[in-house]
């Protein structure tokens, strides 16, 4: 296939006419048709396409909800109920949007962990990775503001607690919080600006995703072996091989997504948010959406350090836990990309995943509750502190040291040698097939 294949077929004349003036067709052909992708992607490589699908889904459903939603403190809650009860198919559109947010985070977290395991952030893909972290940050801001819009109890109190974090800033903290609120409490001006930003930010995400994809197509995709393709043997054209594989992945995803939307639409949501916001009544526990829980745990875990009060220290730690991802390409000094060839790293990777999950669990628990019955002194705050410490140790100590002292397994000669040598599947490389000198990734 070559670029001139676009000239064939019905309407080819018009396509050619447009393409010679604005080469969108040959661009698509080049970047999504012929784009040489390593032939050994496993199913963990589906999640980028899934994230793209969810981004579009969220924007479309969000746009439709915006047509019916009223951003006013007196009317917002009722307008959401009107969408659920009176608007044709309103319940469907809203449930897709609400659950889509959770699935978006699931998909993006898996995408991110995949990148961490297979070393997709390593040179020359550092900027690709950093753009991904920017997308994650934008997603967090977007979902946080979106959660405020239905104006339930947790919308209001979540907004209050999170905006109050900025009061930790020395000297100007209180002024900043008042400025964020546009008043002296979370109120209508706050809701209005959150609504405006919740509408805007997704389009910013689209822009950064565009850069993310451009960067990807400059460096080419990483793959489960973490070695660069050397010959045509090592790659396949993106279309049809990965379009069909991504489509299949999407099909499986849609089944799971539909089951949740239609049969367990409240699975991810807090029942308390079905109660309208009441500024006089704080819920017993204010729990953020599940995808923030690990960060919420870090926020609460950090005590006062030297002259920094606990609140500020917590905020710094929480932001640091995300910003550390930006410098991950320079913290992980290993020469080999893929975790497949890093026996010790692999252990630490799974410990890290477990640690993040425990952090998430801790984030949803009252800090002073005991973890194990009978051990009074060990409460969730203590567990949160240990796991928070490990989170940073993993990035700041374990990864740099591993790069220095770990002895990686020998890398296969090429992707095709590894894949074809061990039959189909593109799965783990058999040890026998790969006994070749180590390659610099």
């Amino acid at each position, binding site marked *: 296939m070559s670029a001139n294949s676009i000239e064939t077929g019905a309407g080819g004349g018009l396509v050619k006419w447009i393409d010679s003036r604005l080469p969108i067709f040959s661009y698509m052909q080049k970047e999504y048709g012929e784009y040489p992708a390593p032939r050994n992607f496993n199913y963990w490589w589906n999640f980028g396409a899934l994230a793209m699908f969810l981004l579009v889904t969220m924007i*479309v459903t969000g746009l*439709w909800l915006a*047509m019916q939603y009223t951003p006013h403190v007196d009317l917002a809650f009722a307008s959401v109920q009107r969408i659920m009860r*009176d608007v*044709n*198919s*309103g319940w469907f*559109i809203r449930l897709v949007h609400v659950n889509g947010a959770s699935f978006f985070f699931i998909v993006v977290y898996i995408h991110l962990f995949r990148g961490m395991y297979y070393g997709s952030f390593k040179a020359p893909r550092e900027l690709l990775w950093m753009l991904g972290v920017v997308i994650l940050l934008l997603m967090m801001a977007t979902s946080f503001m979106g959660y405020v819009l239905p104006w339930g109890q947790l919308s209001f109190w979540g907004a209050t607690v999170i905006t109050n974090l900025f009061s930790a800033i020395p000297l100007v903290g209180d002024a900043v919080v008042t400025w964020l609120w546009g008043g002296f409490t979370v109120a209508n001006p706050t809701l209005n600006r959150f609504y405006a930003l919740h509408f805007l930010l997704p389009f910013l995400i689209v822009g950064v995703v565009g850069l993310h994809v451009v960067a990807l197509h400059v460096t080419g995709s990483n793959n489960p072996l973490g070695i660069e393709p050397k010959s045509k043997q090592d790659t396949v054209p993106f279309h049809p091989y990965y379009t069909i594989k991504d489509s299949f992945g999407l099909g499986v995803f849609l089944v799971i997504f539909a089951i949740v939307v239609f049969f367990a639409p409240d699975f991810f949501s807090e029942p308390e948010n079905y109660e309208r916001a009441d500024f006089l009544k704080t819920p017993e526990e204010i729990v953020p959406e599940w995808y923030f829980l690990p960060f919420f745990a870090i926020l609460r875990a950090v005590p006062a350090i030297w002259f920094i009060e606990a609140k500020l220290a917590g905020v710094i730690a929480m932001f640091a836990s995300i910003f550390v991802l930006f410098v991950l390409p320079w913290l992980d000094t290993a020469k080999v990309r893929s975790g497949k060839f890093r026996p010790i790293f692999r252990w630490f990777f799974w410990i890290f995943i477990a640690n993040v999950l425990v952090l998430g669990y801790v984030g949803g628990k009252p800090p002073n509750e005991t973890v194990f019955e009978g051990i009074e002194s060990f409460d969730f705050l203590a567990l949160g502190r240990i796991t928070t410490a490990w989170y940073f140790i993993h990035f700041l100590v374990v990864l740099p040291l591993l790069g220095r002292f770990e002895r990686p397994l020998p890398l296969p000669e090429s992707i095709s040698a590894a894949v074809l040598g061990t039959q189909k599947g593109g799965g783990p490389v058999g040890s026998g097939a790969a006994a070749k000198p180590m390659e610099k990734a």
Partner: protein
Amino acid sequence: MSEQVQDHDGHDEGRRDFLYITTGAFAAAIGAAAIWPFIDAWNPSADVLALASTEADLSAIEVGQSVTVVWRGKPVFIRHRTEEEIALANLLPEDLPDPQSDGERVLKPEWLVVVGICTHLGCVPLGQKTDDNRGEYDGWFCPCHGSHYDTSGRIRKGPAPRNLDVPEYAFLTDSSIRVG
């Protein structure tokens, strides 16, 4: 795994094409079905439809009086016509721009129910109050571009192309109607 050997005979290719076409058709059908909720969401919602009809009590309207009720966000004129107005309405001149007999436009001769929007460019005509300018035919007069309507709401003079619309309505009792 152990599927049959790929011999490139026509039979196998036919099967493959059939599979691809079926898959594509299925995906297209599901995609199209997924679009429907978004189209449907623009149709009038249940709360809007619930206000699609308006009930009006006629018992308080004296002979010769008119009232305006709001129906689907539009004014509806209800006039309790006098004998003379009914007689005027029953005159059927030859040169009507939009010929219609009065009988086609009312359910009961003493009650005229029309949508109070000029069929020209959508202004609300004058004539609901007895001291309004009711135009040359004693019905309604649209001040925007000078359309004159008679006591049956028919256009008699001026730029309007059609008679005032008669909404769908029904008498619930002798003294109440439901519009819409």
